[in-house]
């Protein structure tokens, strides 16, 4: 059953990409991609539920559905659905109908590669899947062919490929360290690594883990390897920004989490966690500095992604059941919220024809409805109640206090307060500063509906943490902690 659902989730975008390439009509492509997104989403929910029956293995152990993977897949499927709805309206505004089939084909492939990352059980194949996400999304980042987009795409592919080659080196060294215990040829699945972990050489594991952390950390956008992220997120079309931020970064974080469990098992957990916490704090710091003095509206959102990936890294770094639960819940909330923010930014940019905060004025008067949605999202993304991110950040903070990372918690608190002020100040400028004469292009309902669809669940998750989700996340935390014993 879980296997069938997995197949549906993966086949839908694959077929949609194929269909786009065959029919090549802009409207057909929209429809195919949207259909694929709905199908994947519909399959991802029961898949997450069924994953609780214990990990399922397929295809000679190369594919794994466990509760952690299914959760990240669910986050990705949600963003894919929201972004696909949004793309219908947004891409029509761009007016590149002739090339649109290519966009949607790559879009569906991008979703497919993200799903592939999540379900790979072999560390080597996971690396390849992550590399493929880069290759596919580069062309989506550069889709608009402006000099800025191409520059962003070039930086993206060079920096991320170089970074991820470190992860390959780390993977090779992990395999080498395992070969002392398991013999020269074995399949390097996550389970095998975790079981062998106590017998691995701790020095070699430390070196490999650090390489993997920096490698996949580049892809996650942890500072100081984040330099590609603001460019790629701000120059790509808004639905792609949402996918990059809400789906791709989580999929890369998954690799770090899985390796962290191995490092824990090998007895170098404290060093591994401290490094991850340090990267998390660095990301928060960089995010804060660039948020406060930002002028590009999408770059603002991009730096907010750096910040939130830092928060998630802190959650996993703090560890313990609370840390893991908080970080995973934060993934879902951030996926929803960042999609909302990029959709809003895309709408405003297209409507007012500028991407500089200084020249966007009178948002409140011109767009009462979507302006209110976007503002609510802005309040949510800074971690204010009553939205989901408040709860997850609170849990992560508490996790840090119960472990030996209290210093990080205090820094995090201060930075979060600065971000709250700095981020909302930009919105004050855009909403309430006196405006010049401005004419606004109306955006279609396709562009506003997904904002509702992300804000409402975000609000619900903020006032009510469903018991089923709590149990699911606790089970993941137990699974990750079980490696150490």
């Amino acid at each position, binding site marked *: 059953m879980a296997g069938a659902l997995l197949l549906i989730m993966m086949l839908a975008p694959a077929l949609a990409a194929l269909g786009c390439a065959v029919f090549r009509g802009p409207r057909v492509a929209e429809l195919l991609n949207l259909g694929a997104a709905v199908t994947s989403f519909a399959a991802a929910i029961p898949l997450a539920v069924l994953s609780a029956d214990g990990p399922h293995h397929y295809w000679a152990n190369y594919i794994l559905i466990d509760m952690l993977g299914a959760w990240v897949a669910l986050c990705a499927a949600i963003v894919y659905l929201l972004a696909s709805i949004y793309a219908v309206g947004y891409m029509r505004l761009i007016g590149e109908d002739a090339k649109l089939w290519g966009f949607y084909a790559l879009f569906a492939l991008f979703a497919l590669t993200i799903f592939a990352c999540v379900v790979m059980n072999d560390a*080597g194949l996971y690396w*390849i899947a992550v590399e493929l996400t880069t290759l596919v999304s*580069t062309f989506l980042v550069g889709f608009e*062919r402006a000099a800025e987009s191409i*520059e962003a795409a070039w930086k993206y592919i060079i920096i991320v490929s170089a970074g991820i080659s470190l992860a390959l080196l780390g993977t090779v060294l992990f395999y080498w360290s395992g070969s002392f215990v398991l013999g*020269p040829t*074995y399949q390097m699945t996550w389970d095998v690594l975790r079981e062998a972990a106590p017998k691995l050489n701790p020095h070699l594991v430390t070196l490999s883990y650090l390489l993997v952390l920096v490698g996949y950390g580049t892809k996650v956008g942890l500072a100081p390897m984040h330099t590609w992220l603001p460019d790629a997120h701000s120059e790509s079309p808004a639905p792609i920004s949402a996918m990059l931020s809400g789906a791709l970064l989580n999929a890369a974080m998954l690799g770090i989490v899985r390796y962290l469990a191995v490092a824990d098992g090998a007895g170098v957990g404290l060093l591994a966690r401290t490094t991850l916490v340090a990267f998390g704090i660095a990301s928060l710091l960089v995010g804060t500095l660039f948020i406060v003095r930002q002028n590009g509206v999408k770059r603002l959102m991009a730096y907010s992604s750096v910040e939130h990936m830092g928060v998630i890294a802190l959650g996993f770094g703090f560890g313990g059941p609370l840390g893991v639960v908080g970080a995973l819940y934060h993934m879902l909330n951030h996926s929803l919220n960042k999609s909302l923010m990029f959709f809003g930014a895309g709408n405003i940019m297209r409507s007012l024809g500028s991407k500089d905060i200084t020249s966007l004025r009178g948002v409140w008067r011109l767009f009462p409805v979507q302006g209110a949605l976007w503002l609510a999202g802005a309040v949510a993304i800074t971690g204010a109640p009553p939205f989901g991110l408040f709860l997850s950040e609170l849990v992560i903070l508490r996790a840090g206090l119960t472990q030996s990372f209290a210093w990080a918690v205090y820094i995090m608190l201060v930075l979060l307060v600065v971000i709250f002020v700095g981020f909302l100040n930009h919105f004050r400028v855009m909403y309430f500063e006196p405006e010049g004469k401005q004419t606004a292009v109306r955006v279609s309902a396709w562009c506003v509906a997904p904002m509702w669809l992300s804000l409402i669940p975000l609000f619900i998750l903020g006032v009510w943490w469903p018991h089923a989700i709590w149990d699911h996340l606790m089970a993941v935390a137990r699974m990750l902690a079980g490696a150490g014993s």
Partner: protein
Amino acid sequence: MLTAQLDPLAASLFSLMAIASLVLAFVMLGSRWLNNYLYAFAAESWIIAVLSASVAYYGGYPELYLIALLTALFRGLVLPFLIWRIMRRLDVSRELHEILQPSSALVVGALGVVFALIVAYRIGDSIGLASRVAVLALTVMLSMKLIGFLMLAVRREALSQILGLLVLENGIFLGAQILIPGMPLLIEIVILFDLLIIVACFGVLIQYLVANVGSTSSRDLKRLVG
């Protein structure tokens, strides 16, 4: 472990090839002509192919013959050909504005090798490796990594950056042949194909750079800041 019970001839053969590819990496670092990079890269790939074949012969891993063949074909012929085609279209034959002179880059590269050697020896000691080949392989692997990053950092031309990335990959692949010859075949083959796709993507992107930015030098990529 392959490296534990090697006969001396094989051990010196492996060492020789590992060092030869490291020297070729330095050739790339010390030149500013794109042609030289390309020839050095192709030669390095051929050395890795021969290394795979000799690991297959001495270590008794017959599937590595296939890898050797594919390495020679893809890394030794197809990749250099693809890059040569891009180069011919671009009409750029040398680095004009490198951040570091090739001579200084060589010195920094040498420091990198020393650092790699220290790391490799420490790891080797902690595992209690009997064989020097494994330590050497680890050293070469890490040094080529550092040299590749150095090339990425001090060179401006798009093509040099691609070749820098390929040096990174070559280093890993070379080390992997000696350290983990038993790595599953599937993974190795997929990584080889992956490289082809990467270079093809780079080829397309470079065309976009020429068409939309009007330059292939990263000196001119400074629109996005802050």
